[in-house]
């Protein structure tokens, strides 16, 4: 067997030497890193490219102090992001990493670096990393040059197209300065103001004295902007410290200057033509421009806007009107406004149009508010216009004022509330002391004489009345409570359960069932748990009290996605429902049709829901019962719209 081993070893040696010879002859630099990050070997090309001897490379790590590695933007290339390090740590190869090496002799070479892990069969971690690189310095510089030329070309092309399109000279000059500074990487660049001054004066010939003095602009390139007879002015380019402007750059600047000269010439011609143009022509031009601007503005408006004739034919409509109606421009123009739809705000526009004709010119423009079936409130204004050729028309603007209306309502309520809340809470406090005097005396009296049958019925009456008064006082105080919410993440099911449990005794006394149904998976709400539970409790109590014995009150909740995300709760009873005329009054304080009711329950509900940025609605079910709906948003639309001022601070005792 030894023979075989020798043969094997020699074959191995041979193949290793062959490999070594191949590697040595490669144009590419090859460096082998051990698992500990040190270099175990390198080839001759690596030495040549890096400008180091083999012994200056082998045994070192990627932190070799003789070499400073930089990135393309000039920042240092940290050893941690060296391809060898990355491949060692991750086992993944890196390809075509561009790295600049500042050699010890001061030459900067650019390398394109690849790294490959070397693994032994069956071992996941590499035992070494082979890094290969080629010198791309020359390729890189020509690539840069190409890129630079391409940049210059694009600047010239861009400026030329602007000059041809008739971009105003001032704008063109600013653009040129910006682009030139950018592409030549200048410290700054300028154009002598004279150019603009002379243009304005209608001449365009700077004096000799205007020529910039070399001393004023050390190191700067001064390029003449040529004129037909004399120069227009000068383009002055200041290089960065250490930089310079060579012939290549000067040629580029010359092209820019020529373009500027072209544009200046054109502008001068135009200004002299303008002087001779008739007033009529200029007016027409202005009108054309303004018509275009107007159309753009018109479309940019977020409110639906129409221009209609008095008979209701649409002359124009903007994008918002098209979006809202879903009717295309072609289908709408020259048609009657009724093509836009049957609902609001279109119906209100149709109805309001006849009033415009009869409207007195001095009177305010007619306006109307309409609510569409999505609950949005529209404010529609009509302004009569007369065109120069005496055509009469109407500009119709429909503004979505839903938020505004909500805000106003809530503000009005909270104003009423703060005035009334203060009074009510003050009275309640003053009443509670004597009320306690009465109730305590009654309790003492009863405890002494309660056994006497002839007194009993008097006690009963007094106790019921005292209890009623106490309840009223309690609610009044609640109503006047300052709006300070203790907000927390709350699960809807949890508050629903709280309220339902609190109502159980009343429900069983009345022989009414309460069924709680929720969608499941309702989102959490950011609300005051106690207050919202009270809202539901008040609604459930009302529903229970109005339901006939043996019936069921349904308490349900569902998720709402749409204009505002949130949760909608509904309490539906099997009672007689609201009288139609009462629907808008049920939230008024002290409004009640139930004997013994305080008329504050729903006012408190509305107040608390308001404070949460939600909405509460009273309605009748088709089946006849009452339905109270509470919407609570996931995110309150606004904060701080609270009711009465801190009453507790004013009257606390």
């Amino acid at each position, binding site marked *: 067997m030894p023979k075989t081993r020798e043969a094997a070893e020699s074959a191995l040696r041979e193949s290793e030497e062959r490999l070594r010879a191949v590697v040595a002859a490669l144009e590419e630099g090859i460096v082998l890193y051990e698992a500990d990050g040190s270099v175990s070997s390198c080839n001759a090309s690596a030495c040549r490219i890096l400008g180091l001897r083999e012994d200056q490379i082998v045994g070192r790590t990627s932190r070799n102090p003789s070499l400073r590695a930089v990135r393309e933007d000039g920042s240092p290339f940290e050893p941690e992001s060296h391809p060898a390090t990355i491949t060692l740590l991750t086992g993944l190869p890196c390809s075509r990493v561009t790295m600049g090496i500042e050699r010890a002799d001061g030459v900067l070479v650019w390398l394109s670096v690849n790294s490959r892990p070397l693994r032994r069969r069956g071992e996941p971690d590499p035992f070494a990393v082979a890094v290969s690189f080629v010198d791309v310095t020359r390729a890189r510089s020509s690539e840069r040059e190409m890129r630079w030329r391409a940049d210059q070309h694009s600047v010239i092309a861009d400026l030329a197209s602007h000059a041809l399109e008739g971009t105003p000279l001032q704008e063109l000059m600013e653009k040129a300065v910006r682009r030139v500074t950018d592409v030549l990487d200048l410290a700054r660049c300028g154009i002598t103001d004279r150019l603009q001054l002379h243009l304005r004066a209608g001449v365009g010939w700077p004096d000799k004295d205007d020529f910039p003095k070399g001393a004023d602009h050390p190191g700067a390139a001064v390029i003449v902007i040529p004129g037909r007879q004399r120069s227009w002015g000068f383009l002055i380019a200041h290089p960065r410290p250490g930089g310079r402007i060579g012939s290549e750059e000067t040629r580029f600047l010359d092209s820019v200057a020529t373009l500027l000269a072209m544009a200046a010439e054109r502008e001068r011609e135009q200004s002299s033509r303008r002087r001779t143009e008739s007033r009529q022509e200029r007016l027409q031009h202005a009108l054309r421009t303004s018509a275009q601007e107007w159309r753009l503005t018109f479309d940019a408006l977020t409110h639906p806007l129409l221009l209609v004739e008095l008979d209701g034919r649409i002359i124009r409509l903007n994008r918002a009107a098209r979006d809202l109606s879903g009717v295309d421009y072609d289908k709408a123009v020259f048609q009657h406004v009724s093509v836009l739809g049957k609902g609001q705000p279109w119906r209100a526009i149709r109805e309001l149009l006849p009033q415009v004709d009869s409207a007195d010119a001095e009177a305010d423009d007619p306006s109307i508010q309409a609510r569409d079936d999505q609950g949005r409130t529209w404010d529609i204004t009509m302004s009569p216009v007369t065109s120069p050729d005496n055509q009469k028309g109407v500009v119709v603007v429909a503004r979505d004022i839903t938020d505004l209306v909500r805000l106003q309502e809530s503000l009005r309520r909270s104003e009423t509330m703060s005035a009334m809340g203060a009074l009510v809470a003050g009275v309640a*406090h003053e009443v*509670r*002391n*004597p*009320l*306690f*005097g*009465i*109730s*305590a*005396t009654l*309790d*003492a009296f009863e*405890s*002494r004489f309660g056994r006497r049958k002839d007194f009993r019925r008097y006690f009963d009456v007094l106790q019921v009345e*005292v209890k009623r008064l*106490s309840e009223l*006082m*309690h609610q009044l*105080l*609640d109503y006047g*409570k300052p709006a300070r919410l203790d907000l927390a993440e709350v699960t809807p099911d949890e508050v629903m359960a709280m309220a339902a449990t609190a109502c159980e005794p009343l429900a069983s006394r009345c022989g009414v069932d309460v069924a709680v149904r929720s969608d499941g998976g309702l989102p959490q709400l950011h609300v005051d748990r106690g207050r919202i539970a009270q809202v539901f409790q008040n609604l459930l109590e009302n529903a229970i009290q109005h339901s006939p014995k043996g019936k069921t009150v349904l308490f349900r909740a569902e998720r709402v996605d749409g204009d505002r995300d949130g949760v909608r709760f509904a309490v539906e009873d099997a009672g007689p429902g609201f009288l139609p005329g009462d629907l808008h009054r049920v939230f008024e304080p002290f409004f009640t049709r139930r004997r013994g009711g305080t008329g504050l329950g729903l006012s408190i509900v509305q107040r608390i829901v308001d404070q949460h940025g939600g909405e509460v609605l009273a309605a009748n079910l088709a089946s006849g019962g009452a339905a109270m709906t509470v919407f609570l948003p996931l995110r309150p639309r606004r904060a701080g719209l609270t009711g009465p001022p801190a009453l*507790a601070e004013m*009257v*606390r*005792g």
Partner: protein
Amino acid sequence: MKPRLLVVDDEESILSAIRDYFEPRGYEVDCARELEEAEALLSHIRYALLIADLRLTGVQGNEGLELIRFARERSPWTRTIVLTGYGSSEIEMEAIGRGVDAFLQKPQPLAELAAIAANLTGRDA
């Protein structure tokens, strides 16, 4: 020995009603209408329970809390109940922070007040 009870309120009707209700239930009841009077009594007599209105005739409006602090320092064995006609939770928090045993809203049914008092003084109602 009967537990001794101090009731502080500026309403005569309330004082007499509470006295008439509690005396037959085995308490010895003293009454005070002002802060100073109540403090003097607390300094000399060992009370099992103090029932105080939050606001007495003074101007500052929460003499009841003042009295609770006095009782905590000078008569730590006295249990305390505060009654108020003003349902402000800030005051309630403050009162509880000062070691009040019970904070009750007026008008409080005396039967409930008696149950709480019995509980605090370790008696059967």
